[in-house]
């Protein structure tokens, strides 16, 4: 019996589900080249050189960017640039901190016995079993109560007043990212051969040298895939950001959501397409890291 034989039903179902997964994305990309500004129907690609008159009499000027008109438009949109900057700043800062403290916690939970260990381990599962909106409004309540109290107690006024912004978003992102980093690194540590470390110690290396030269290089692929996972979670987050952002800390998902409730031009599609491209590259990188991790260390 051929172990890879599958029934036609399974293959048909797989084709159907892949179509279901990809059709919306492909339509989204197609409309990013739409000549129609209202983006309701697809009016063909934007001409590169000639001008043409639309059905309603309005004139479509040829764009110097040709079919990529909306992408050029996007690059000139200050709101998008600012939102992209915020998104990346938050993601980088939060990933750095979450990776460091998450890896430390993974080492502690895997290698040491201490009093608060059961509590530490259990708290990692909170973001998995509790709906994100519950965490979001909880964190919002915490910040608004704490800031209200602090602003009053220290008579903070004007710019010194504590308020929601990039800082609160970053701090909140770290909270839901850390458990993922810790769980990924913990999984890596579980399959860890301790004899390498014992050999290093036998050869006279102290604990710090052993960690730096043996342990860390061996868990590094796990740490990196944990970091990349955390980074993508931060880029992608909507709900927690929605409740913790303030003026000037709009991220891309929040910006797109705002647009969806108002007027939509193909610019949103162009933005989405760029995003999908970046995600494509990031996932490719993650896969590559994991395939390296799967191979035995030299």
């Amino acid at each position, binding site marked *: 019996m051929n172990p890879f034989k599958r029934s036609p039903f399974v293959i048909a179902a797989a084709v159907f589900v892949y179509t279901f997964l*990809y059709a919306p994305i492909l339509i989204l990309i197609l409309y990013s080249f739409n000549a129609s500004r209202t983006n*309701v129907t697809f009016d063909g690609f934007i001409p590169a050189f000639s001008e043409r008159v639309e059905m309603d009499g309005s004139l479509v000027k040829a764009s110097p960017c040709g079919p990529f008109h909306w992408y050029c438009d996007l690059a000139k949109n200050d709101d998008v640039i600012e939102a992209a900057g915020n998104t990346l700043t938050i993601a980088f800062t939060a990933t750095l901190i979450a990776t460091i403290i998450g890896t*430390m916690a993974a080492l*502690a939970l895997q290698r040491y016995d201490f009093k608060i260990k059961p509590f530490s381990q259990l708290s990692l599962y909170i973001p998995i*079993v509790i*709906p994100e909106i519950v965490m979001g409004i*909880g964190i919002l*309540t915490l910040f608004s109560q704490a800031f209200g109290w602090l602003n009053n107690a220290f008579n903070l006024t004007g710019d010194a007043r504590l308020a929601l912004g990039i800082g609160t978003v970053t701090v909140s992102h770290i909270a839901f990212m850390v458990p993922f980093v810790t769980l990924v690194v913990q999984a890596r540590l579980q399959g860890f051969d301790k004899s390498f470390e014992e050999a290093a110690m036998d050869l006279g290396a102290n604990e710090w040298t052993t960690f730096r030269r043996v342990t860390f290089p061996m868990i590094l692929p796990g740490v990196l895939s944990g970091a990349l996972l955390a980074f993508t979670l931060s880029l992608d987050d909507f709900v927690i950001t929605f409740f913790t952002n303030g003026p000037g800390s709009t991220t891309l998902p929040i910006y797109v959501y705002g647009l*969806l409730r108002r007027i939509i031009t193909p610019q949103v599609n162009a933005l989405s397409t760029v995003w999908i491209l970046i995600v494509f590259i990031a996932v490719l990188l993650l896969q590559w890291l994991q395939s390296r991790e799967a191979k035995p260390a030299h």
Partner: protein
Amino acid sequence: MLQRLRESKSMQGTFLALPTTLWLFVLLIIPLFLTLIVSFGQRSPDGGVIFSFSLDNYIRLLGYSTDCPGGQASCFDPLYVNILWRSLTLAFNTTAVVILLAYPLAYFIARAHPKRRNLFLFMVLIPLWTNFVIRVYAWMMLLRKEGAINIVIGWVAGLFGIEFTPLEMLYTPGAVLVGMVYEFLPFMILPIYTSLEKIDNSLYEAAADLGANAVKTLLRVTLPLSMPGVVAGTILVFIPVMGTFIVSDILGGRQVILVGNLIQRQFLDARDPTFGSAASLILMVMTLIVTYFYTRKFGFGEEIVAA
């Protein structure tokens, strides 16, 4: 101090775990307690919170109303109970549809040639990591009256010479269901794949040798052994569907209000954080109860981390 840290293994462990534990305590556990406290409070005229101990918010959620059409002192107003019930049934329906779609695909990938498995998995990850909001937007474009689905149906109808008026699909409960299924499908595919992939090929061979046909093998071998994946996937789908408000907001318009929308509006438009907190705790309790009974029967597998 430093000397003691160097000698005590237990202190080193505490020191290493402390930043994470503290962070999660301050930003996840304290907020949950705060939400509980606020839910017993009352709304102040400016939309703030007056701390007190009152069960009014919960009583209101469960249908007690003092604003009655007949002028009685109190009556039953099913508005919020309906919203909770609608969220619960939508989460069950979404999970059921997602399992039906995810299982064959996960099986297809798990039984594919090992060399091609990574490519097929990669193809599941791309939609998964495409931003949540963008994916809802994609369905908005598809489901619109002038959208691609109506164009395709219209074109097919045209081939057969049938008169076709574009369907109103956007802003219906069906649109919200499709959107939810699309959003969370990958979260079911991955854990089911993980548990299917673990099944040793010799088990299929043994089943075939013993004369089991395809249906019997599926029912007696494949399904029971892949249950941990289905359970993990259900948790990863059911919980977020219960709390999501974007899908119903964008694809349901004002027609489909879920408990997520209810909570969101209390914190933004209606400005009654006490009522929003009570609704959010009810939501949490509902998901925890369902998760508890579900995992007690089937266990809480490692597949959840694999996704």
